[in-house]
């Protein structure tokens, strides 16, 4: 699932289904996402360091995975597309 600004930018709906090679991780999922939608490069993670942008969060299966190493395998429910990997624009403001 993508935040609203990125759906508009990539001209997609709320959910994007991706073929991701095993092992499925946050990094490999984002690699697949950016390969299909190059316009998203730099908008979720840095172009070169691939570090998560500060106000972006990764949620899955009711867990915040934002601070895990991005090469950690994702839960089976994500890999089998039963649950989404949520890329979230964190609440910012007052």
């Amino acid at each position: 699932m993508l935040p609203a600004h990125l759906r508009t930018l990539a001209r997609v709906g709320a959910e994007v289904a991706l073929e991701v090679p095993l092992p499925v991780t946050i990094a490999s999922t984002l690699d697949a996402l950016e390969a299909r939608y190059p316009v998203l490069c730099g908008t979720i993670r840095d172009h070169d360091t691939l570090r998560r942008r500060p106000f972006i969060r990764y949620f899955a299966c009711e867990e915040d995975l934002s601070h895990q190493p991005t090469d950690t395998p994702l839960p089976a429910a994500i890999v089998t597309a039963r649950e989404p990997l949520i890329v979230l624009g964190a609440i910012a403001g007052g």
Partner: protein
Amino acid sequence: MSKVRVLVGTHKGAFVLTSDGKRENWEVSGPHFAGWEVYHLKGSPADPNRIYCAPSTGWHGQVIQRSDDGGKTWEPVGNKFAYEGTPGTHQWYDGTPHPWEFKRVWHLEPSLTDPDKIYAGAEDAALFESTDGGKNWAEFPSLREHDTAKGWQPGAGGLCLHTIVLDPTDPQRIFIAISAAGAFRTDDGGRSWKPINRGLHSQYIPDATAEVGHCVHHIAMSAQRPGVLFMQKHWDVMRSDDAGDNWREVSGNLPTDFGFAIDVHAHEPETIYVVPIKSDSEHFPLDGQLRVYRSRTGGNEWEPLTKGLPQSNCFVNVLRDAMAVDTMDDCGIYFGTTGGQVYASINAGDTWAPIVRDLPAVLSVEVQTIA
């Protein structure tokens, strides 16, 4: 008949305002890139249908959008702004070294002759160029690596390169300004840069006449006289008659010489416009009266222009890139406010009327005059 297109960057998107040459009835299109901060958008002088736009958000960073049909449709182009080599450090607000980090594009300046060539001024201060219509960007590192750069400090809005002025008679000459480093000029197409701040006097730095460290807010130039520059500094309105080598103050009888925006009449190179703002801590007009000041003598003697502008309870700001002129025979002057109004004058400032009143805070205004 000629057409005028006003390009408005706002806190929450871009708007395109279009009128025929009479400039009485305006069609408003937008918001484009709704929700994104659009610091600047500008059309190519070589192809008015081509417009470049720089939306950004705190969540997703910078993207660059390009239109090839006058702002009706847009396509994202390249958004990778990488500093050349190891970027090094500049001074932080507390005086400690701080790594150079790209944050956003403040200003886009399309080439005067090539629609595929465009410059981008960035925070942290750097100048980038694209020669393929915005797909790829390359830095001019010699500016960021200037001998004085380690001592540059950010202004309140960041260490931003916010002004790019191209010399129509010399493609190798570019003027830029950085808050709060000052003004610089290249005469060799960006290979080397020279600070051009002699004559500036800034009481908020230890050496008031230092080579760099001045908070230049904006620079304007008449295409008819490229050697003559006008500057709105943090405080002081300045003028140079030798391409920035020397500056002299022309604030004259302005009621306050703090401000952000400055521009030059399209056909009268001695007619200039500023919007005086009360002070560096009170960013609104004096006495709640929104007044553009015009000098027909290249500075020093200024007259307030008030007809059609609110003269009570007005506490908006006019930001540095939020004033522009068209090139119609009766020169039109345009400016936008942080209250979301875009005002236009079709008689060189004598009278004003709002084109729109309720946009998000206006960050930039540019004008295209289309034959």
